[in-house]
């Protein structure tokens, strides 16, 4: 669920702009449609291609002030607009981490001073606010972003100012900027293990369903290559426009395909409509299990536990992960934000990212970006998901992949785990079958 999308982004509908209409009433309709399209038409992805731009590193003077007993860091998440619903949870987790670190004596003895900004679900605003945080607030690092379009919009800002961004969401891979640390999963830590699991369960044919934007299309390219190499037949590949509300045809195709399992990269509200239709025609996890990569704890209530119980998800963290660190994290989170709140993978990745930055700064004994980068390789943190280790080459984390099953309690329970942390491989260079994908 990353990429140019919003987990619950309402889909901009196509508008019949330019419809030639003649009567006065229908003419106003055309205006209506155009106005609606304009207001619904959310920003298109700033489709900048990869992070190949050379870092302008040493040439830029940093204005970070470390002389006092505080150091500024920036939190940049959408608190308004369509992404607010998801990004607010990440902000909550970041606030918690900052509070804990400050209570524990800060970083290199300096208390963290948070400069909070709202990205407003707009990639261009993310870029502007990032520039402001770096240049006029002089923060030592920025934490945030969710959609791939927001990350791609911020990337040149961080590279040209030689500043640091910590990005907390799993995404479609194929990127490795020297100025970004990716604390969510890349494809070989979520999608590939998800396929490994389905294969182990004996699936020989799969059906792919996803929302029509960059993440599902990239993910499905990888899945197709994987399936071909491992003798799995892809019996259907369907994309629904963002905000698509009627899945009767797609579910009909799924039924007709006779697939053993479904790999679901749908996003947001579409998941609700898909699972209701899937349940209504009488299918269930026993006949055709669905493995989803965009459904985390907080979405389950909206889909309805009865529609999704027993289905699978692939992530690196669940609230139910059994460890003392996670128990403490969940307890602290609930104590701060309320008993009814749940914790999810992106929240945990954001929480972890702040601690990892602390670890890197302490390893470097400096807040300087180049020093932090030089010291980053091998920095570890005993995170709620388990121990994670920073890879200094591609700035991703080695993390353990977990397949979970959605329980009647609305939480996700681990049913499969990779053998220890998986080294990040954003360009899938270590997989023969993935040749030519990137």
């Amino acid at each position, binding site marked *: 669920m990353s990429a140019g999308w919003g987990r*619950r982004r309402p*889909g901009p*509908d*196509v*508008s*019949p702009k330019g*419809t*030639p*209409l*003649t*009567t*006065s*009433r*229908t003419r*106003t*309709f055309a*205006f*209506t*449609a155009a*106005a*609606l399209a304009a*207001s619904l038409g959310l920003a298109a992805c700033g489709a900048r291609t990869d992070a190949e731009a050379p870092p302008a590193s040493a040439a830029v003077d940093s204005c970070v002030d470390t002389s006092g007993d505080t150091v500024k860091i920036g939190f940049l998440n959408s608190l308004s607009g*369509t992404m*607010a*619903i998801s990004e*607010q949870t990440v902000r909550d987790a970041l606030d918690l981490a900052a509070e804990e670190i400050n209570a524990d004596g800060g970083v290199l003895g300096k208390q963290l001073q948070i400069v909070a900004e709202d990205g407003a679900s707009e990639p261009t605003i993310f870029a502007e606010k990032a520039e402001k945080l770096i240049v006029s607030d002089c923060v030592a690092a920025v934490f945030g972003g969710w959609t791939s379009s927001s990350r791609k919009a911020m990337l040149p800002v961080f590279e040209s100012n030689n500043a640091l961004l910590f990005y907390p969401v799993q995404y479609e891979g194929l990127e490795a900027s020297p100025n970004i640390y990716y604390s969510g999963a890349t494809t070989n830590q979520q999608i590939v293990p998800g396929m490994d699991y389905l294969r182990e369960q004996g699936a020989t044919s799969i059906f792919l369903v996803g929302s*029509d934007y960059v993440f599902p299309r990239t993910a499905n390219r990888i899945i197709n290559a994987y399936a071909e190499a491992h003798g799995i037949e892809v019996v259907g590949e*369907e*994309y*629904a*426009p963002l*905000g*698509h*509300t*009627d899945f*009767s*045809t*797609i579910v*009909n*195709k799924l*039924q*007709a395909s006779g697939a053993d399992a479904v790999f679901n990269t749908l996003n947001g*509200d579409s*998941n*609700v*409509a898909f699972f*209701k*239709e899937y*349940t*209504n*025609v*009488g299918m269930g996890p026993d006949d055709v299990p669905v493995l989803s990569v965009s459904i985390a704890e*907080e*979405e389950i*209530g*909206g*889909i*309805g*536990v*009865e529609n999704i119980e027993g289905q699978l998800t692939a992530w690196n963290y669940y609230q139910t992960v059994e460890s003392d660190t996670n128990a403490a994290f969940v307890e602290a989170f609930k104590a701060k934000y309320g008993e009814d709140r749940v914790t999810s993978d992106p929240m945990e990745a954001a929480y972890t990212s702040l601690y990892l930055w602390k670890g890197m700064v302490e390893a470097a004994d400096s807040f300087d970006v180049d020093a932090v980068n030089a010291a980053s390789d091998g920095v570890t943190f005993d995170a709620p998901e388990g121990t994670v280790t920073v890879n200094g080459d591609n700035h991703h984390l080695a993390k353990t992949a977990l397949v979970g099953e959605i329980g009647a309690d609305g939480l996700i329970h681990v049913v499969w785990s990779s053998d220890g942390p998986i080294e990040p491989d954003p360009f899938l260079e270590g997989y023969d079958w993935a040749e030519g994908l990137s």
Partner: protein
Amino acid sequence: MDPLLSQLFAGLSVGSVLLLAALGLALTFGQMGVINMAHGEFMMAGAYTAFVVQLVVADAGLSLMMSLGIGFLVGGLLGLLLEATLLSRMYHRPLDTLLVTWGVALILQQVARDVFGAPNVDVRAPEWLSGAVTLLGVQVPKTRLFILLVAVVCVAALSIVLKQTPLGRRIRATVTNRDLAETSGISTRATDRLTFFIGSGIAGVAGVVLTLLGSIGPTLGRNYIVDAFLVVVAGGIGQLKGAVIAAFALGISQALIEFSTTASIAKVAVFVAVVVFLQFRPQGIVSVRTRSLA
């Protein structure tokens, strides 16, 4: 099972959803000429009504039936409120209505977000609607049959009201020639209010049944409003018949095209078809002769 037959049914069911979303609009936009961008939010209010009723009445079946009635009232009263406070001041100013109702739509969305929270909520479907029945060798979800039934009942009830009752005569008279209706002693203000109440009430009912199919969140209405206007415009202004034909024609063609191509292509193809159709028949499928000057 026969894919063609199963797609025909899928099309009927898409059409029934489109029809429910568009029926109220056919009345308020089609008959009265009010562009109500908040129509989708009245549907959203209906959906949240189903959620609230289910909190009170635990039995899913009973709460669904109660929600249909209460949803109609909630939608209708919201419509009445909107008509009495804002729209009544701006008849004959369609562009102002457009902007004002769009603003109202945003306000209603935010109210829903503040009251019910931003995450989606869930309404349980009753036991007797779960699963599917086999008709002519096609697996048909019971929820889809139920929605088709609700759509048919709404159309039937509405056409009886319009054709057989004094209120219906007044509405038709007002549509055909507002000034003449007024000089004949019809209170067009009262007629407008009632029409708006009924149209918005049907939006509430549509919202209730949509809880069986999709997500229930503050932005539910946005997903349907454009399609609803499309149905009304393609169907022709001022006639329910047109909306019914257009809804099922669009639903079935969407389902058939989607089966052989993809969901995105189907959506585009349907829009293109409507655009081309309106080139040749700008008044829509069914048109009514009015003697009004507008």
